């Protein structure tokens, strides 16, 4: 068991080193990305200044809209990586033509997919941290509560989204393009998970049916939990409801996504289309 874990981690390390080397071969892109995060945070700061002195909202997490937006963007960035990176890893290797040579090494296809998306998570961690860091450094945004509890939410939600990512990767493996999971969750999460505005507004303006959509999305619970901890300073006992809901999502999605993925790999091997794109 431990030997297998060490082997797995070594493979992940190999992919992370490779992707780091590839990333630094495009130095300019890396700096432009960092600058764009700073510009985004600055933009949110100026938008938040419109509401200075006039914010009298019943939504506790939104009394400091800048803090809510920054955490929303940081977490959304991470969540998007969670469900898009696995499918992207497959597509990118297929498009580069390197998937065949990687799959010729004695590692399993699931290991290839998880390991080749590891660098995306490293990058997402850095970029998400930069959202929070720039807010704190330049715009005096302060975070409350336990950082570990916030991390627990982050990890749990990312795992749930990685399950959706596995479904997405399975779809990519068979159909090559047009992954519906990525499209629906990518666009849906920004609108329905409360990234830029409170989800309660959806019920207020859209009625009960539209208002219930956020409850179907794991990102809603992840984001809500993280904001409750970081902005409202809530403790573990106060955030058990979103935590348990996320656990249910994970228990339902993990075995299902692995089953679908196994079938997708077998099908691609049967059709001889594993390396086609």
């Amino acid at each position, binding site marked *: 068991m431990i030997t297998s874990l060490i082997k797995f981690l070594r493979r992940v390390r190999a992919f992370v*080193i490779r992707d780091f080397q*590839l990333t630094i*071969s495009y130095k300019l892109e890396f700096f432009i990305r960092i600058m764009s995060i700073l510009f985004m945070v600055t933009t949110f700061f100026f938008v938040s200044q419109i509401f200075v002195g006039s914010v009298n909202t019943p939504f506790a997490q939104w009394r400091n809209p800048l803090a809510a937006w920054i955490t929303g963007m940081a977490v959304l960035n991470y969540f998007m990586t969670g469900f898009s990176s696995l499918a992207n890893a497959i597509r990118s290797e297929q498009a*580069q033509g390197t998937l*065949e040579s990687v799959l010729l090494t*004695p590692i*399993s296809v699931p290991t290839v997919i998880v390991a080749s998306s590891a660098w995306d998570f490293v990058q997402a961690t850095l970029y998400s941290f930069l959202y929070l860091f720039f807010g704190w450094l330049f715009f005096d945004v302060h975070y409350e509560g336990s950082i570990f509890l916030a991390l627990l939410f982050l990890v749990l939600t990312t795992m749930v989204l990685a399950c959706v990512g596995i479904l997405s990767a399975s779809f990519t493996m068979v159909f090559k393009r047009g992954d519906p999971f990525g499209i629906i969750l990518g666009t849906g999460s920004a609108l329905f998970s409360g990234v830029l505005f409170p989800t309660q507004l959806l019920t207020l303006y859209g009625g009960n049916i539209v208002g219930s959509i956020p409850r179907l999305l794991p990102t809603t619970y992840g984001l809500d939990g993280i904001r409750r901890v970081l902005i409202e300073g809530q403790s573990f006992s106060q955030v058990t409801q979103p935590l348990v809901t996320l656990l249910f999502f994970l228990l339902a999605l993990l075995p299902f996504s692995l089953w679908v993925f196994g079938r997708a790999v077998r099908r691609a091997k049967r059709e*001889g289309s594993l390396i086609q794109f």
Partner: protein
Amino acid sequence: MASTIVRDNSKSGSNIADAKSSSPARAIAISIKHLSKTYPVPLARLKQFFRRKMKQPVEALRDVSFDVREGEIFGLIGRNGAGKTTLTKIVATLVQPTSGTVTVKGYDSVREDERVRAQVGLATAEERSFYWRLTAEQNLLFFARLYGLDEAQARQRISELLERFEIEELRARRFAELSTGNRQRLAMARAMLTRPQVLLLDEPTRSLDPLAAARARSLIGSLARQDPPVSVLLTSHNLTEIEELCERVAVISRGQIRALDTPERLRTLHTPTERIHIFAKEISVANAKNLFLQKFDEMEITEKTGTLSLSFTRKIQDNRLNEVIRVLRDAGAEIVSFDVERATLLDVMESYEREDEVKAV
């Protein structure tokens, strides 16, 4: 007339000399049994439901069976689309067979695919199988890590291989900056990172200059003789290369193995005759005609710039050549040189292809 000839020489007890074969009792490295592969129509049921036009499923391999022995260089020849790549990919576990089995060093290519991949190295002429923005060394290090080599082992092995393939000065160059030939050498180096016991080589010398190609052939030849020996499944359109290197050759046409034997025997079975040209001096045309035309009625005798040329067709290994040489010597002629024209593997391949075309019509 060509027909399907599949023969295992280790059991045939033939008296035809097979200079390249060594021990007849070698273990089996790759075993292919009744292998068939039909590529299904993707999403056939969905297309049927929407009543969309469907292509027919592609039958890439049909009931293919043969073994590759330990330390054997086994050649696979056939036209584009004959099924060579599908066969290689099934052995490499990249494609699943429709029926039949492939075992590599005793491991099943479907059930024990990771173990099979640990035994196999594949080098293709596909340039896109590397990361173009990484250097030659970074590329090899990445794959060495995936094969489970530790850092020190990997670096040492990479240095050895770069030196062996004479590209050590290119280790810090980006893959994109390498010439096609050097990319191919790097692909060979990658295939040999873990000292695999089975090598699958798909046109390994296609883009190499003649000198580099000769060195690569010499290297491939030496792999089979090293300890432990490497078994090589070699596909190539360079039939001279196949003939030079391979102990046995399989001719594949339209997914079927049409012939399997030593190159020598394949040629003999295809055309049991050969054309001999003898060039001699110190003998006139008239004298030669007088000596030979009665006995060898099909002999062509000509003269060019003082050298006599005698051409005749004989059954391979009959005694006519000895007889002609003896007669020439008795007549005081000086034999300058001689040349033998035999059927080539290309002739063999073409004959099966023609036969299949006729059948298809």
